[in-house]
C-alpha cells in the first residue's frame, strides 16, 4: 500500500542480557507474537521468552536415524548373507553382533546429516540477505550488545506504537529496519 520504504520491523538495542530477557517477556505480555532476539551469547530462557515453538527438526533427525539404522544393517546383511557369504570361524552368515557397530555408525551419520541439512532447510540458511543487518549497529550483536526485534508481520504491529512500546522498555536505542 505504502509507496515509501517497506518496513521489516523495529529493533531495540540493550546493554545487558537480563534487560533483553525482561524486554522479551514484556513484549510477549503486551501481545506481540512475531519477535526475535539476537545475542552474542546463549541466554537461558530466552527462546521460551520470544515464544520459540518446537520445530519439526527432531522428527527429521529421527527419520534420518531410522533410515541410517535400517540402511546400515541392510547393507551388511546384503553383503554377508546374499551377495558374498563367507564362513568366518563357523559363525552364521547373519552375524548380527558384528553388524551392530557399523549400524550404530550409519545411524549417527544419517541422523547428524539430517540434523544439519534439516536445520538449514527449516531456517532458510544460507541466506545472502537478511533485513536485520540494515540496523546500523546490528554488528554489535556478535560482540556485546543484545537486540530485540518486533517484526512487521506481527498482527499487532503498528510502526509508531511499536516504537513507543519498545522505547518504554528503556533500551539503549530503537531503530526501524527496512525490508
Amino acid at each position, binding site marked *: 500500500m505504502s509507496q515509501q520504504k517497506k518496513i521489516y520491523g523495529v529493533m531495540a538495542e540493550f546493554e545487558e542480557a537480563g534487560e533483553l530477557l525482561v524486554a522479551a517477556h514484556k513484549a510477549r505480555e503486551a501481545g506481540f507474537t512475531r519477535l526475535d532476539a539476537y545475542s552474542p551469547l546463549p541466554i*537461558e530462557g530466552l527462546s521460551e521468552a520470544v515464544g520459540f515453538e518446537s520445530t519439526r527438526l527432531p522428527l527429521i533427525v529421527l527419520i534420518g536415524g531410522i533410515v541410517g539404522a535400517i540402511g546400515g544393517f541392510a547393507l551388511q546383511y546384503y553383503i554377508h548373507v546374499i551377495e558374498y557369504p563367507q564362513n568366518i570361524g*563357523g*559363525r552364521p552368515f547373519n552375524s548380527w*553382533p*558384528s553388524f*551392530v557397530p557399523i549400524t550404530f555408525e550409519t545411524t549417527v551419520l544419517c541422523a547428524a546429516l539430517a540434523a544439519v541439512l534439516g536445520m538449514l532447510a527449516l531456517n532458510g540458511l544460507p541466506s545472502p540477505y537478511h533485513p536485520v543487518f540494515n540496523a546500523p549497529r546490528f554488528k554489535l550483536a556478535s560482540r556485546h550488545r543484545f537486540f530485540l526485534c518486533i517484526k512487521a508481520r506481527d498482527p499487532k504491529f503498528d510502526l509508531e506504537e511499536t516504537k513507543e512500546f519498545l522505547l518504554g522498555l528503556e533500551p539503549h536505542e530503537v531503530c526501524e529496519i527496512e525490508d
Partner: protein
Amino acid sequence: MPSLTYVPGEEIRRMQWRAFWVGAIAMAICIVGAFFSRVQFFQSYLLGFLYWTGMGLGCMAIMMLHHLTSGAWGMVIRRPLESASRTIALMALLFIPLAFGVPSIYSWVNRTGLSQEQLQYLNVPFFLIRSAVYFAVWLLLAFRFSSWSQRQDTDNDASLIRKMRLLSGPGLVIYSLTMSLASVDWIMSLEPRWYSTIFGLLVIGGQLLSAMAFAIVILVLLASRQPLSEIVGPRHLHDLGKLLLTFVMIWAYLSFSQLLLIWAGNLTHEIPWYLRRWHGGWMWVGLALILFHFFIPFFLLLSQDLKRNAKALGLLAAFMLVVRALDLYWVTVPEFSPAGVFHLHWMNILVPIGIGGLWLAVFAWQLRLRPLLPLGDPQLHQALEHE
C-alpha cells in the same frame, strides 16, 4: 532464599521404621527358610548383598564425582548420597553371614577342574581377606567424606571443600580398582573358568546407574514436601535425568562390548557364559534387559519434558531400580541352576527385600542425623538460585 533449616521431616522417621519392619520380617521368614534350604538361602543372600552393597558404593562414587565436577544437581542430592555411602558399614556387617555361605555359593571351593594358579587366588581364606580389605578401604573413604561434610556444616571452613575435592580423584580410582577386584571375587568367580576384562567396569556402571536412580527417587520423594519443595526445581531434575541417561548408555555400551568381544573371539572358555544365559528360558530375561534396561529408558530419557517432570522421572527411576535387580539376576542366578533352566525361588525375591528393608532403615536413620542440604558449602547458594 527462604530462611529454613532443612531439618529432615517426620516422614523420614516413618520411612525408617516401616523399612525396618519390612526388612526384619522378610529376613526372619528367610532365616526360617534357610533351615529347609541352606544353599538356596545363601545364593539368594548373595543377590541381596550385591544389590545393596552396589547401591551404597554407587552413591559414594557419584558423591565423589560431584566433588570433582560440582554443580547444582549434586548439591541437592549430596546428603542422600552421603547417607547411602555410610550404609557400607551395614553391608560390611552383613558380609559376615556370607562368609559362612561361601561353600554354598562358590564352586571353586571344591577345587575341581582349576589350575594351581587359580587355586592360589580362589581359596576361602584369601577370599575373606580380600573382601575385608575392600570393605576397610570403602569405609575409610565413606567416613572420611562424611566427617568432613559434617564439619563443613558448622565450621565454615573453606579448606574442607578443597580437601574433599583432593580426595575425590584418588578416591574414584581406588573405588574403580577395588570394585573391579570385588566383582571378580563376588560375581565372576561363580564360574571360575570364565573371565571378561570388561566385567569390573560393567559392574561399576551398573552400580552408578542404580545409585543415580535411587538418588532421583529419594529426591523426588523429599521434594514433594517442605522444605525441599521450595528448592528443588525442574532444573535439578533435568540434570539428574541427563546423568541417568548417561549411565543407561554406559551400561548398554559396556554390556554390548563384552558380548561383541566374546562373539568375535568365539573361544571355548568364554562362550559358555553366554550360552548358559541364552538357553532354558534365560534368553527371555536377556531380551527383557535389552528392552527395559536400554531401549525404553533410553528413548524416554531423550525427552526434555520427562526429565523436567518430577513424577515421570521419579517413576522411571523407580522402574530402573527394578530392572537393575533383573540384570543382577541374569548375571548371577544362571550359575546356580545346574540344569540351566530359568528358575525363580521365593527367597531370590524375599532376601533382597529383607536386606533392602534393613538397608533403607539405616539409610533413613543416617539421613535424619543431618540437615537435608550441606549448609556450610560455599557453592550452596548458587545451587539454590531459581531459574
